[in-house]
């Protein structure tokens, strides 16, 4: 009953704000006494930006806060009669923004393809549910987007640009006081920043790498459930997901309620994968569940051996390639073969997610053959180089002999002349 009453109250607030907001938007004009007065008295909001997306769309202060921006008298412009709303509470904020952002008829004037389900999504999120239940610390619209310095998400200065999202989320999730009542901990940002994804995004500015929202969602942000992890990781790591789904491990993962990808790779602190994760020593992930001699142990050892052998041969071919490049010989054919060998190695490492040593061995055989071919081609080039060097030595010797013979001949001719 209490919950129904709260929802009814919010619906009423939402309807009221919508009506007032629409009236204010219709009454939009160029005169903005709010701005004039706030600038004159130096009481502008701390996060105010001239480039704010609303300012750009000529939505004035009254567009959100209500009131009459044409009235010279403050009491009149900020009166309830003029539709003044003032500063919304945190609980009112989704409806406050939603009065425009949930109306496609209004929003498509500015952006024809803009989604208008943010508020609906928000109330399905952990943030939204907590806000509805009366949690006053939980994130709402302006926590992520700011209030008066909102920039398009494509703008690298925006708090919701992929470059800045980890820090934006960390403002709350890294705050021990705010997180004290949750079981989350506060190390997500540090974990992420040191992960393979975090390094790519933060250090190398690779926007192909996921930020927080790519796994957790935006307005509907929620922790991914065990059943959705492989789908989330698989949205980028497609082959890994396909191999995993059809593997024995994938089927076991479903029935035994393992956290699929997360079970081995972790979540925020996912490190760059290494062959050593498969090795049957202290670094092995497999040994967290498997033990010496069981089927998983044998499979891990077999796959590790195949990958290391293929990689060693590939590295040997790379050393030969560098050798012939230093010698200035033709490396085009070898480079082409090594491209295929590299591709094979990538596919081989992905194939580990089949957890099938037979498939891995077959793929490894192709890779070894390619690297062996590159080494053989490099051998031909090196032998050609040696042949040229020998030819150069022989010709140098011939010239030295010729010079010496000419010298002796001249001496002989001189000696003959003297004796005559």
């Amino acid at each position, binding site marked *: 009953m209490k919950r129904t009453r709260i929802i009814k109250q919010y619906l009423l607030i939402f309807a009221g704000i919508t009506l007032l907001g629409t009236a204010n938007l219709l009454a939009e004009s160029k005169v903005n006494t709010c701005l004039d007065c706030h600038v004159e008295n130096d009481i502008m909001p701390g996060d105010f930006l001239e480039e704010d997306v609303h300012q750009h769309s000529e939505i004035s202060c009254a567009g959100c806060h209500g009131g009459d921006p044409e009235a010279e008298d403050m009491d009149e412009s900020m009166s309830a009669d003029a539709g003044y709303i003032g500063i919304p509470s945190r609980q009112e904020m989704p409806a406050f923004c939603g009065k425009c952002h949930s109306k496609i008829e209004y929003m498509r004037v500015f952006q024809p393809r803009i989604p208008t389900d943010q508020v609906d999504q928000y109330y399905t999120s952990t943030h939204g549910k907590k806000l509805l239940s009366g949690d006053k610390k939980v994130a709402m619209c302006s926590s992520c987007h700011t209030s008066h310095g909102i920039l398009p998400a494509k703008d690298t200065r925006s708090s919701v640009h992929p470059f800045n999202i980890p820090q934006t989320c960390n403002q709350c999730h890294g705050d021990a006081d705010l997180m004290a009542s949750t079981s989350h901990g506060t190390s997500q940002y540090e974990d992420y920043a040191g992960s393979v994804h975090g390094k790519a995004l933060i250090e190398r500015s690779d926007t192909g790498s996921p930020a927080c929202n790519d796994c957790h969602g935006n307005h509907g942000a929620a922790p991914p459930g065990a059943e959705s992890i492989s789908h989330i990781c698989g949205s980028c790591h497609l082959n890994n997901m396909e191999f995993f789904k059809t593997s024995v491990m994938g089927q076991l993962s479903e029935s035994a309620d393992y956290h699929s990808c997360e079970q081995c790779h972790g979540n925020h602190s996912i490190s760059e994968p290494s062959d050593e994760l498969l090795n049957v020593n202290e670094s092995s992930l497999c040994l967290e569940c498997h033990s010496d001699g069981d089927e998983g142990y044998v499979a891990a050892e077999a796959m590790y051996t195949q990958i290391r052998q293929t990689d060693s041969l590939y590295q040997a071919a790379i050393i030969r390639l560098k050798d012939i490049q230093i010698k200035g010989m033709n490396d085009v054919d070898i480079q082409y073969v090594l491209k295929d060998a590299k*591709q094979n190695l990538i596919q081989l490492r992905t194939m580990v997610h089949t957890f099938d040593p037979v498939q891995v061995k077959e793929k490894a055989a192709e890779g070894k053959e390619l690297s062996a071919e590159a080494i053989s081609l490099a051998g031909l080039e090196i032998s050609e180089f040696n042949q040229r060097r020998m030819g150069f030595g022989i010709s140098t010797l011939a010239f030295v002999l010729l010079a010496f013979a000419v010298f002796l001949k001249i001496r002989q001719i001189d000696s003959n002349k003297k004796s005559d």
Partner: protein
Amino acid sequence: MKYGRREFINTLLGAGGIGGLASILYPVFQFLVPPEVTEPQVSSLKVGAVGDFPVNSSKIVRFGRVPVILIRSDRDTFKALAATCTHLDCIVQYNQARKQIICACHNGVYDLSGKNISGPPPKPLAVYSVSIVDDQVMITQEKDLA
């Protein structure tokens, strides 16, 4: 017959002369004979007659040091794109059924204009110009790629 100093010098002179001449002529001869390998620095490449490429097929060709995928998507349309995936440099393939370019390493997908449309590739594939000259298909590197 006595092999005296004179004969020794003449032999030395002859051998040195022949060796010296061979040292000059061999590189000249090698220069005149065309090399077996393609010149790596190419800006244009003839890849074959139009009839050599069936409709809805592709071929990976060597454009100097760079593999290029030539796709004949329909009767009159040839496309040439860098065949190296922009994710981790794997060689891409043309999927006839989907009429898309696929990278088998991580399932990256590009459309026929080379635009990355799915999976991990961060950038589109570089585009090469294709022209038909005397029924021969020519691939040319576009200026901004040079």
